[in-house]
């Protein structure tokens, strides 16, 4: 579903429901009322947006630390000619949750999600051994915003 296939109601739903979903018996009815819609319309629209892949999910996003887990951002300077091979090695680690190529001498940026900081250190050490490249770790010290909100 292309971006321009969204109508004003779809946009209002996406913009209005990126956070603060109610926890009550008829939450979609309550959310619909806030948007000036009825429950059946909201349910049908949400199903369509999910089926079309505009929404990856409808539900909670957890704070990893609260689930007894931790995440750590890390980066490597990968020689461009080896980039794909190194990406394959790194992505092969189950602890690696995200991996992005970025425009910088440090050109591979990934996140490891593990049970605790010790496991994160161990995973990064394993990745360093498996790739033969230095891994820089950037553990999070504070978080200043929680809502990933993208107006559409």
């Amino acid at each position, binding site marked *: 579903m292309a*971006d321009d296939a*969204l109508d004003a109601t779809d946009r209002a739903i*996406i913009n209005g*429901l*990126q*956070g*603060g*979903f109610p*926890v009550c*018996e*008829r*939450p*979609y009815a309550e959310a619909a009322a806030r948007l000036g819609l009825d*429950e059946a319309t909201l*349910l049908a629209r*949400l*199903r369509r*947006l*999910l089926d079309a*892949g*505009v*929404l*990856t*999910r*409808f*539900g*909670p996003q957890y704070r990893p630390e*609260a*689930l*007894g*887990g*931790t*995440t750590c*951002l890390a980066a490597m300077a990968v020689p461009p000619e080896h980039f794909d091979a190194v*990406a394959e090695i*790194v*992505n092969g680690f189950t602890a*690696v*949750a*995200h991996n*992005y*190529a*970025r425009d*910088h001498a440090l050109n591979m940026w990934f996140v490891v*999600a593990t*049970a605790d900081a010790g496991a994160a250190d161990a995973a990064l050490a394993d990745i360093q051994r498996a790739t033969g490249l230095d891994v*820089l*770790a*950037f*553990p*999070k*010290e*504070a*978080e*200043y*915003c929680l*809502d*990933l909100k*993208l107006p*559409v």
Partner: protein
Amino acid sequence: MELTETDARLVAALRDGLPVTARPYAALGERLGLSEATVLARLTALREAGVVRRFGAIVRHRALGYTANAMCVFDVPDAGAADLGRRAARHPGVTLCYRRRRAAGWPYNLYCMIHGRDHGRVLELYEALADDLGVAEGARAILFSRRCFKQTAGCYGRAAAAGSGAQRPDGARGATVMAAR
């Protein structure tokens, strides 16, 4: 907050999303052998404790034309980092903001993700943000993403142990190589 066994099962069951039906918490309870009232009470508690950081529509931003994704990094004094971080978080286009440990050869400690529809617009937002934070050119950098190689929901801790483990049909939980950015 220490998660109970019930909480862990709820968290795991919700990993793939809330049912899109009129009484989703009752449906969820039925799957887990819990009453609707218990599901409502535990979810309210998880939310109040900050275990749930956000509850609602999770947007696949590339599908909506947000193809420009930049990690903007700043070297700011540690003492003022919290104020500047909160200030940055309110900026248009900034979707996530963290303070992170510096590393050898990497002086930056404040990270802002900016998502936008085009490269030029993201650069403008970055320059405006840098001006507002008062960070000079030599003390900042912008790293656009070129490709996303893997994007999975993190899975760890007790919730993972209780995990649903289900593979989503769209592969969202598996290793995904995406075409661009």
